[in-house]
């Protein structure tokens, strides 16, 4: 699945919702809040790193959304526009709190990262098949779907995401948890496409290792 590079323009559904919002339709507003409040909160969290502050940022962002609703020109999706307001306010707030943006250091992106997979899982130099799997991953095709999508497995993945370095956590949260595009993620976190991809790679590789460990441990005796 390749991520689109350009931001999505406003859809017909968004245009209709926007028209209803401007008319003061409360059901439309409730719908918007239900759709965006969670993503807004998680975006604020990756910037400010504190739940209470993130909630204030989101509250403040909603005020901003209402204030600017009349001027929104629909050059992006409604969601992107709202999240941009959140990101701006969260950044300002993080600076005011003298808190370094969690990913401003880019987590040592200039340093060589740790390998995605433990080196000892590959055949060593000198071997005829050097660099090929010595201890290959097993197929998860036989893991029942209800087990993969169980609360326990999800909790394990969430734990692994929590343990990531902040910039990696921010990127995987927006990309894979929220399902945002690469372009949206770059904009909302102020990252270049290349850096976004490196962080996503490190994050996913770490989470895969955690999930593999978890599935292997709990499959014993199956």
């Amino acid at each position, binding site marked *: *699945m*390749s*991520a689109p590079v350009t931001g999505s323009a406003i859809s017909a559904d968004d245009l209709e919702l926007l028209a209803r919002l401007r008319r*003061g339709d*409360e059901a439309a*507003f*409730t719908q918007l*809040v*239900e*759709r965006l*409040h*969670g993503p807004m*909160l998680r975006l604020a969290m990756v910037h400010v790193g504190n739940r209470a502050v993130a909630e204030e940022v989101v*509250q403040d962002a*909603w*005020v901003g959304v*209402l*204030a600017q*609703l009349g001027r929104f020109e629909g050059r992006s999706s409604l969601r992107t526009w709202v999240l941009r307001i959140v990101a701006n306010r969260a950044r300002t707030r993080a600076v005011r709190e003298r808190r370094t943006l969690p990913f401003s250091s880019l987590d040592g992106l200039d340093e060589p990262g740790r*390998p*995605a*997979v433990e*080196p000892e899982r*590959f055949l060593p130099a000198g071997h*005829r*098949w*050097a*660099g*090929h*799997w010595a201890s*290959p*991953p*097993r*197929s*998860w*095709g036989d893991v029942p779907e209800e087990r*993969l*999508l169980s609360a326990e*497995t*999800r909790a394990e*993945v969430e734990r692994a*995401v929590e343990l990531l370095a902040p910039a990696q956590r921010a990127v*995987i949260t927006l990309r*894979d*948890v*929220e*399902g945002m595009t*690469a372009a949206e993620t770059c904009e909302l976190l102020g990252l270049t*496409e290349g850096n976004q*991809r490196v962080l*996503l*790679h490190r994050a*996913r*590789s770490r*989470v*895969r290792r955690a*999930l*593999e460990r978890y599935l292997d441990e709990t499959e014993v005796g199956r």
Partner: protein
Amino acid sequence: MTDPTTDDLECREVVEVVTDYLEGAMAPGDRLRFDDHLALCEDCQAYLEQMRTVIRVAGRPVADAVPPETMAGLLRAFRDWRR
């Protein structure tokens, strides 16, 4: 099976470029080498599938419930704005 040639991708390299592959960020030549390797390597096929599973399991399945008091506060702000 024949011996690997120097042009072949090693599994060790595959796991480092798998995100570039999934993101569609590979140069056409590199993508061909990746696909060539994948076609012959069941272990790397399994690895790629694991990465896809990670993405799927990480995704939020349902919309979050907004706390009623938060919703009530926002609706008040909306009514004020409407006036």
